[in-house]
């Protein structure tokens, strides 16, 4: 679904000579995300995982390598890739329904059809009844749910999520992880999610990739099924306290720590 071949991102020109900490952000990333996967990119802060997501989204052009989504090479941002941002990026001049319906409005088409569709996705993220509320009245978790509904309303091939729960409090964060798994299960979308939370990554991922510090390479790739098991009905806390889960979490944590290797 998402294919990355030898993707490299680096600064060119004047910046190269003035940047002390290396100029290569991503160093030859090869990665295939199968259709329907919930792929998670994990790595120490500042390692370039968001850069990789931005390359897939088409916001950054790679300096080398090839990126393709659903067989089509990526040349810029496009409606086949929906993006959910950490700072939600909702438009405060539109109400909740208006925000979710925006991608459909940009595409043209009847008002009733797009509002029906927007209502459907608001229901999916548990926000029915909030349609006409201004988004600036909502809590952080609710705003992220609007962001997810909005990205889904555009019906993308892939949903790209850049630390979507990074700014939320711990409890809301866990709720949102469970909601995301529910939404993923219900829609069957391919998702690529960036996070620096190890437990979050292990819980959600079907495909977990750990990046090294800059210049980033893939240092670990695991296929997991904890998220899928939760989506099929197992309790989140029960899964997170399984010996299996704890052991994977500690191993991955070890890998990330080894990469972090410095005082922050």
């Amino acid at each position, binding site marked *: 679904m998402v294919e990355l071949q030898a993707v490299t991102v680096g600064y060119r020109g004047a910046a190269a000579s003035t940047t002390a900490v290396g100029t290569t952000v991503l160093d030859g990333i090869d990665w295939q995300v199968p259709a329907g996967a919930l792929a998670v990119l994990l790595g120490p802060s500042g390692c370039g995982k968001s850069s990789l997501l931005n390359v897939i*989204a088409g916001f950054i052009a790679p300096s080398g390598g090839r990126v393709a989504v659903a067989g089509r090479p990526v040349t*810029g941002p*496009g*409606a086949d890739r929906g993006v959910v941002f950490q700072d939600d990026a909702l438009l405060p001049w539109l109400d909740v329904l208006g925000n979710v319906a925006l991608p459909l409005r*940009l*595409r043209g088409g009847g008002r009733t059809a797009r509002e029906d569709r927007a209502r459907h996705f608001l229901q999916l993220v548990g926000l029915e009844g909030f349609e006409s509320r201004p988004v*600036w009245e909502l809590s952080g978790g609710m705003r992220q749910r609007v962001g997810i509904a*909005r990205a889904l309303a*555009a019906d993308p091939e892939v949903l790209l999520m850049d630390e979507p729960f990074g700014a939320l409090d711990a409890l809301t964060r866990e709720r949102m992880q469970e909601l995301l798994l529910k939404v993923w299960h219900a829609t069957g979308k391919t998702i690529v999610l960036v996070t620096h939370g190890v437990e979050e990554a292990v819980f959600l991922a079907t495909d977990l990739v750990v990046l090294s510090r800059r210049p980033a390479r893939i240092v670990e790739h695991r296929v997991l099924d904890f998220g899928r098991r939760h989506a099929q009905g197992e309790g989140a806390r029960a899964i997170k306290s399984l010996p299996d889960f704890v052991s994977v979490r500690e191993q991955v944590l070890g890998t990330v720590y080894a990469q972090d290797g410095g005082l922050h």
Partner: protein
Amino acid sequence: MSAISPLTVRTLVQPAPGEAEAPSRPAGPPWWSRPGAISLVSVLVLLGLWHAVTALRWIEPLFLPPPAAVWEKLLRVAGEGYLDATLWQHAGASLARVGLALLFAVLTAVPLGLWMGWSARVRGVFDPLIEFYRPVPPLAYLPLIVIWFGIGEVSKVLLITLAIFAPLVIATATGVRQVEETRRRAALAFGATRWQLLRHVVLPGALPEILTGVRVGLGVGWSTLVAAELVAATRGLGFMVQSAAQFLNTDIVLLGIFTIALIAFGLELGLRALQRRLVPWQGRG
């Protein structure tokens, strides 16, 4: 010996009828210490001083007529008029000039500001021009405008337009540059074209700054009014004040100044209300 009187028992156990609601409403400051009341008192004290100073004849009425005389003048100018026009016609002429100038300024400055905020190259072209003329007082370039455009309405409206234009174009360009990058990216990821990005993200995102620019611009424009009406006007508040001063009609001068101030105050309040209505999200996300 009973230590507790019936009165004490009543207040301890249950409040008397009517007392129950009193504690539930938090006691605000008394009416006379609220900001609005203080301002009102301040204005009344000034009026009182003005009246006292003139009633005691400390200052000649020629220099400072008493408040009652100005009030009387207001009634007369409002009814019979002064220099062939009533107060309302003078105010109307001034408001029409400023309104027309505001319209022209919005129609030109907002698109240019959007373009300047959008493209660094365009900003590079226009920034020096705007920064060059912006700090120059309108009175300084008024003669040039008169040489180029004559002494008619065009020059007056143009002068006010120029005064509004600079703050508005700068505010608009700033507003565009302050639109969050993730909001632009979100729209692009939904397949927005450049026009859709402008229409759905950039313009509404810059609207709070644009409205602030209109407020600042209208303030500057209104204060340029007297200068604009110096030249060959036959109506207008600025013209009224200027002419009255030449005949030492101090009461009319004061009346004109008060009218100009009150209208400016009203415009500011109106624009603030408009801002609250159009951009209620300002400062909230």
